């Protein structure tokens, strides 16, 4: 025989899934919500998204090629995903140069500083987003008005911001609710907010797709949303005049986007199912706490980043159930 026999230790079969496939499937799952946001916010959203994606790819390539001097791995789709998620977390009206800085921070600080794919402690897109939020608070909280996008963008507060300010001023919840869109509209995607926050229902479509493709399991998204619902609900039951109702919590802000696409980021979430549930409960509690008592109207980004920091600890202490373990 002319060819050499290959020798490898077992197993000799592989499921055939790859990092690339997973990443591109997640991107695919994001598309409906992304396309809807293009329709709602128009060209500015397209520009923001394109800039973020291209910037992420270029920055990752430059860092890998010239700083780390390794083999660039941009083809695995993670940079594209980070770019899309970053774009979905900022207002569509954000100036291009700011989103570029966001991409630089997301990839440069959030990902490559830790050693690249798989090594990062924090979700890179959220690192970028929070960096921008702290650095450029004005631009990052000027949301284009959905209903007037085709004309010139005027700014409008997000439902969460309206409620937050209202409560601060002592306006009763019932009056505030009149100011914000109806729940059905929130679900369909008719509120001001970040590029990717607008349509809860299309994000849910993405979730269903990812669950069917077995890219993620139900544990993280359902626990995060469930915790937000339950904790928000408890507060609401205690005093419906002081606290908004739980459905409002679920439908507004980045709750859906965060729970479905950001918290489930494999790299920064715990490995075991038990750990994932602890992680998700933490996110839910911190999110509602920040929304209710914190100084920012929305808190899921911070909540996810905070729990990201706990992930190694959770991984260390929460072990899967061992076979043959006696309780």
């Amino acid at each position, binding site marked *: 025989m002319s060819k050499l026999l290959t020798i490898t230790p077992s197993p000799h079969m592989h499921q055939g899934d790859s990092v690339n496939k997973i990443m591109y499937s997640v991107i695919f799952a994001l598309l409906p919500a992304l396309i809807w946001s293009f329709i709602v916010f128009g060209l500015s959203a397209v520009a923001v998204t394109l800039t973020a994606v291209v910037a992420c790819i270029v920055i990752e390539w430059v860092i890998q090629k010239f700083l780390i001097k390794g083999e660039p791995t941009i083809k695995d789709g993670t940079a594209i995903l980070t770019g899309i998620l970053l774009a979905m977390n900022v207002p569509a009206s954000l100036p291009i140069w700011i989103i570029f800085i966001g991409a630089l921070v997301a990839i440069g600080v959030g990902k490559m500083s830790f050693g690249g794919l798989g090594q990062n402690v924090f979700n890179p897109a959220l690192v970028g987003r929070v960096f921008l939020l702290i650095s450029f608070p004005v631009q990052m909280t000027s949301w284009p008005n959905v209903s007037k996008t085709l004309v010139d963008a005027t700014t409008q507060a997000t439902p969460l911001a309206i409620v937050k300010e209202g409560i601060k001023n002592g306006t009763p919840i019932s009056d505030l609710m009149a100011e914000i869109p109806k729940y059905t509209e929130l679900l369909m995607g008719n509120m001001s907010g970040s590029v990717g926050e607008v349509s809860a229902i299309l994000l849910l479509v993405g979730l269903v797709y990812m669950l069917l493709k077995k890219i993620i399991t139900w544990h993280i998204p359902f626990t995060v949303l469930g915790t937000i619902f339950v904790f928000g609900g408890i507060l609401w039951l205690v005093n419906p005049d002081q606290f908004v109702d739980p459905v409002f919590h679920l439908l507004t802000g980045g709750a859906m986007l965060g729970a479905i696409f950001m918290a489930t980021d*494999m790299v920064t979430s715990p490995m075991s199912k038990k750990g994932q549930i602890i992680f998700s409960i933490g996110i839910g509690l911190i999110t509602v706490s920040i929304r209710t008592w914190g100084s920012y109207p929305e808190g899921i980004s911070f909540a996810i980043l905070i729990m990201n920091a706990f992930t190694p600890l959770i991984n260390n202490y929460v072990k899967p159930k061992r076979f043959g373990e006696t309780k």
Partner: protein
Amino acid sequence: MLKTFKIGGVHPAENKLSAHKAVEQLPLPKTATIMVAQHIGAPSKVIVQRGDEVKVGQIIAQSAGFVSTNIHSSVSGKVMKIDTVVDSSGYKKNAIVINVVGDEWDESIDRSTELVTDTDLDAKAITDKILAAGIVGLGGATFPTHVKLSPPPGMKAEVLLINGVECEPYLTADHRLMLEKGDELMVGTKILMKALNVNRAAIGIENNKPDAIKHLKELAKKYEGIEICPLKVQYPQGGEKQLIKAVIGREVPSGALPIAVGAVVNNVGTALATYEAIIKNKPLIERIVTVTGKSVANPSNFMVRIGTPTSQLIEAAGGLPDDTAKIISGGPMMGKAVSNIEVPVTKGTSGILIIKEEEGHRKPMQNCIRCGRCVSVCPMGLEPFLLMTLSEKNTWDKSEEERVMDCIECGSCSYTCPANRPLLDHIRYGKMTVGGIIRTRK
């Protein structure tokens, strides 16, 4: 709901290409190379010399300890040499090479096919005879069977499990055995029950072999105490601990043997070999081997004498295809890629699998993305990603703490890893090293 184990598991494509092929007798080889170490434990002691004439079934190497067993000549002829030969791993191992002349069987062996359903030997005598016949676990682990039949003091077997799961993709040897030698299997099981002094036995079969389940269920009516237990198709259903969990719902504690929960597991092949040894006085000199693979012209099941070179089996199944990348001895999940096409069949060879070029190579390794799939598929509830890292960093004490020794090397982790990381390679190394450390501690 079908019974199964509870933690982890995967479901690889089954590819049972040769399931409908009846077992054929493979012609005798020209020379038989019989390895001296064919089982777990001490290598046997060679008792023949160069130039000796041997008969089929004649003992040529003797058990050299409690965990060891006898080896018999599978052919008749002349001992050509006793020397080292390259085995499947590329290392040189001792072997007895016999030049085959004719097919002359030892007189004590009963070669008739008539079914005898009972033996008057007692438990001790059965166990002794199993040792004398050189029977080892034929599922692949090759653990000497007589050791399994001798529970340590203070322990008592309650149930005998016969493993007809055959969860490895491609392999069909056990499947064919159950279909074609059902009665002998049943009698063998009864004998093993007698040896263990238990009155309950269960044969676990994966649900993808409905004909075998039906056939054995029919037969089981005749044999008291044997039940047939269909199991969900889930890899590694055939793992000893997984099978026990699935069939009787008990979990073997970490580091303990199945006997700790009152179970003894034997392969269907072992049960058949027991029947032949006890009833027909025939030692373990041949076994059923599946020769298969997507590129193989004629995937088949052969009855093969121990010591036959692999090349002869492949030839019988239609020859070695041109685009062969790997030849695997055993199944695709736990089998071993052989370095050399001439390696002989041993007692543990359950199949010869030929893998095509496009499926035969590992994809480039990527960074771990901590997706946690290895954790969710591990049937032992371990964290393969962690064990691999610990192994790479040589942190053995932590590795032991994380129960690296519990790994059953089923390969589910490597199979499922989207980043193509060689998890099992590193874990196996960790297991070997930690095992060595534990032994020196004692």
